[in-house]
């Protein structure tokens, strides 16, 4: 019996993985690495950091440093939550060492969703995407405050429900709703003046 087919539930793969089946672990990784990497990439703006986050999340799953409880939700939400916490920890460490522009957002407050300067890395990945429209949205997302960015990315890019996002971000559903609304408004405001150039416009 093939225990690593595309239809095998995550919980079955996890059980097989914990018995030492490398194929099950590889199947789990291949199933979830893409969304996780894309979330981390949009969230932190660095492909290297995103790769590190994916690796650490799966390493934690492997070593059971991060314990997944199937009763609390699907594995994908759990991994998003782990990735988000890892990124927050990285940002916290960075904030201790780098003097950043005034940004003292209360995670649950009604602060400005679009601070003056993004917290994400720029530089080698100042341009990440070939498509100009996509790149503009990515940059606009990068200007959102992190807790707004989390909600917008998870909702718009990964099509998660409010409840799933609330679980991942450890806030209530009302907060998810308000952050999404304010985040989208800020994005719309920033992107309102942008128009694709004819040669680069996405068809």
């Amino acid at each position, binding site marked *: 019996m093939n225990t690593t087919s595309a239809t095998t539930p995550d919980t079955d793969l996890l059980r097989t993985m914990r018995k030492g089946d*490398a194929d099950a672990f590889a199947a789990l990784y291949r199933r979830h690495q893409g969304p996780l990497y894309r979330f981390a990439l949009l969230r932190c703006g660095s492909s290297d950091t995103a790769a590190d986050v994916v690796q650490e999340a799966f*390493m934690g799953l492997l070593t059971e440093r991060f314990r997944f409880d199937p009763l609390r939700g699907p594995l994908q939400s759990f991994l998003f939550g782990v990735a988000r916490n890892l990124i927050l920890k990285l940002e916290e460490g960075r904030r201790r060492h780098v003097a950043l522009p005034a940004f003292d957002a209360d995670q649950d407050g009604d602060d400005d969703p679009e601070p003056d300067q993004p917290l994400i890395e720029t530089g080698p990945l100042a341009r990440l995407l070939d*498509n100009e429209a996509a790149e503009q949205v990515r940059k606009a997302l990068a200007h959102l405050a992190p807790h707004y960015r989390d909600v917008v990315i998870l909702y718009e*890019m990964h099509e998660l429900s409010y409840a799933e996002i609330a679980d991942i971000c450890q806030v209530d559903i009302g907060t998810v709703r308000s952050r999404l609304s304010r985040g989208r408004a800020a994005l*719309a405001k920033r992107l309102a003046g942008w128009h694709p150039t004819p040669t680069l416009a*996405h068809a």
Partner: protein
Amino acid sequence: MDNRDTIDPLFDALRGEMARLDAPRGVEKELLQAFARQFPQKQPWHRRLALRRWALAGSLSTAVTALTVFSLLLHNPRLDADPDGASRPLLSRDGNGGLFIALETQERIEQEPAPRVVETEVSRSSLARLGVPLTPENAGDTVKAEMLLGADGQPLAVRLTSID
């Protein structure tokens, strides 16, 4: 103004662009190596034995085989006594107090066309493997013996004449 009209097409573009992005291949490789370290493959028992263990197992096996063969030789039916005297016992006392040791079957000895007897002396220690008692005190002694030889010089039996 409805935000959706402004940003939904742009998110479509972003989703399309991001869909082709995956974690670098090196991540999977690192993770699978970590997995292999965490769950080392259980090898079959014969592969788990190191060369030294194989050598030890071989030595033990050889020793056991040698003991088995020796034991079978000592209890060889051809050499053991049987009730009707069809073959001679390995060790038997003759009427003169000597010790007779048949080295071949009775048939082989009887069929020998030209047997001959040769007087000699043999060390007691060399007789130990034939079942002759050996003690530290007499281990260095020699015993007078009469060897029954076939025409080809092959020993058929030995009679120890001066053994206690």
